[in-house]
């Protein structure tokens, strides 16, 4: 199988869906992210603490959701180094049930094309069921020729 290729900028049109993926989170996912990131806020792994501060349950770290939501775009672009700008608003927390976990659906669509810079703005829709959990989630991906890279 040939190595995956970074998409051609010229082949893109606004509105194209470039990637779609769903992510099944469990409490294990949260503990793993806590360790890797160094964010040990107990609302991300302790039901009693989450309850005591008035939350509906243990929540995924916002930065975990931001972290995996961009991965379908990274895979599409092939090289994570092509992501030159990435922003999100945390609009709704992701509650992770101890038994059922949570499923987060990501759809990545071309939102804007800057032909001069060969940068595509990819807009992410990130939902749990019908509810959007990240707002204004935008990834700028540089797709120009980088001389050998």
């Amino acid at each position, binding site marked *: 199988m040939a190595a995956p290729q970074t998409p051609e900028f010229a082949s893109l049109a606004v509105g194209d869906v470039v990637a779609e993926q769903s992510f099944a989170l469990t409490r294990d996912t949260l503990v793993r992210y806590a*360790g*890797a990131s160094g964010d040990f806020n107990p609302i991300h792994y302790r039901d009693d603490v989450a309850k005591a501060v008035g939350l509906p349950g243990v929540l995924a770290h916002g930065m*975990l959701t*931001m972290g995996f939501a961009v*991965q379908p775009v990274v895979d599409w672009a092939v090289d994570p180094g092509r992501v030159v700008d*990435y922003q999100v608003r945390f609009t709704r927390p992701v509650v992770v049930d101890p038994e059922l976990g949570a499923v987060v659906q990501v759809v990545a669509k071309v939102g804007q094309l800057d032909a001069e810079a060969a940068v595509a703005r990819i807009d992410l829709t990130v939902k749990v069921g019908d509810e959007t959990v990240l707002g204004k989630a935008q990834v700028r991906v540089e797709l120009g020729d980088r001389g050998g890279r």
Partner: protein
Amino acid sequence: MNPELVGREFPPTAPYLVGREKVREFARAVLASTPISLDPEAARAAGYADVVAPPTFAVVIQEQTLAQLLAEPDAGIDFSRVVHGSQQFVQSRPIVAGDLLTAALAVTSVKSLGAHAMVTAESTITDADGAHVVTAISTLVVRGED
């Protein structure tokens, strides 16, 4: 929250050496599957010196600067009331294992929204040569008394 925080700049953090296994650990934790973040051979084939960190890895370094802000005696930020409002990374180049990075925090905005307050802080991350790598911008919402 103290509105006089706007414009305040903090001293650079101690240099952070980006380890290969830390990048791989973080990549697995954000459910990444790209070989360029996991396999040094694949990273070299793509023109990098070592594995390339996922786009949100800078949060690990930014975290040290936000700790400086929350610890500021006159900031008036109650950590237990802080909610992450938004986040952005603006990068000049990706973080690669082997980088020695330093972060400097500046508070760019403080706003009140009724009982709540919002603070925006920018962490500028540079490499051992002093060249810009990535700027991490966080807006924290401090919830007012219930």
